[in-house]
């Protein structure tokens, strides 16, 4: 029976000043799945959180589908050429991103995202990066404004037994 570590802290960042982007790079290919946990608030401006993998900035390589509730109604939608995965509000909130099977080199990469802002909305989102490369870096950035000081980002690796 394997007894090795299966849920491992790879890296974490706590912002000491407001920033619009953070990057986890040199991610090793020794795990099965990745999880990124964001917790914090926007400095002043509400915005979408975007994700780029391996430095690929081409929007047409990404697509997404989501379901969302704002407290009064539910909705769903799809974007065929966009890379937003979460939401950044000025109240304390969290976003959790799970990148499944990130290190294989044969399939496109799917990310499951959850956005949780009790004063604004709750969202589940699935996104696709149409590239078969193993994921070695993840960049998260806001479309406007900044992540506030004290915002945390934690990257975990889950290893198959």
């Amino acid at each position, binding site marked *: 029976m394997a007894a090795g*570590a*299966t*849920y*491992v*802290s*790879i890296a*974490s960042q706590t912002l000491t000043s407001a920033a619009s982007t953070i990057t986890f790079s040199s991610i*090793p290919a020794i795990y099965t799945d990745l999880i990124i*946990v*964001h*917790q*914090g608030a926007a400095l002043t401006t509400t915005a979408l959180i975007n994700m780029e993998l391996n430095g690929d900035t081409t929007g047409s390589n990404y697509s997404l589908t989501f*379901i*969302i*509730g*704002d*407290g*009064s*109604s*539910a909705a*769903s939608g799809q974007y065929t050429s966009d890379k937003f995965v979460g939401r950044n509000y000025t*109240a*304390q*909130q*969290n976003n*959790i991103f799970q990148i499944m099977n990130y290190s294989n080199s044969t399939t496109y990469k799917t990310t499951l995202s*959850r*956005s*949780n*802002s*009790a*004063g*604004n*909305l*709750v*969202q*589940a989102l699935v996104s696709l990066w149409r590239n078969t490369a193993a994921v070695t870096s993840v960049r998260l950035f806001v479309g406007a404004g900044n992540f506030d000081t*004290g915002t*945390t980002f*934690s990257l*975990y690796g889950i290893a198959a037994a």
Partner: protein
Amino acid sequence: MATANTFVQIGSTVTVGGGGAADITFSSIPATYTDLVVKISSRDTTSGSVWQNFQIAFNGLTTNLSSRAVYGNITTPSSASFASNIFMWTSAANATASTFGNAEIYIPNYASSNNKSVSADFVSETNGTDAIYGLTAGLWADASAITSIKLTPALGFAQYSTASLYGILKY
């Protein structure tokens, strides 16, 4: 590069006994982790209901809680907001016998001095005419470190309901 397991169970799984339970509480939670995860398998004892709500509260307080949920059952998906509670839903007494709802609650930075945001997913399938699936975003607007968690059902947790608490540690 850290290699230690950072997802560890805190204490033991709570299993509800034959008399049911009015709540499940985890207390004396140490501040040594970064995030908390609660995994729940539960059934509510409310008769006449296929599913019912349950809620989470912290440190023995029921103030400064709020949430928004999006959920679907057999009709059009809906969304609701709650100004004083963090609600989720689970199976109840009119659900197919022996079926229990599942929920996972994630609380990042639970020991920080910021307000605490909560992510929750819940499901309840009954092999019958109704079921529920949903997501909840919660907030406890309190700067205190979380030292206890209380799960409270609409009426009571049925026998064999379980809850487990885990700590996640970043280096």
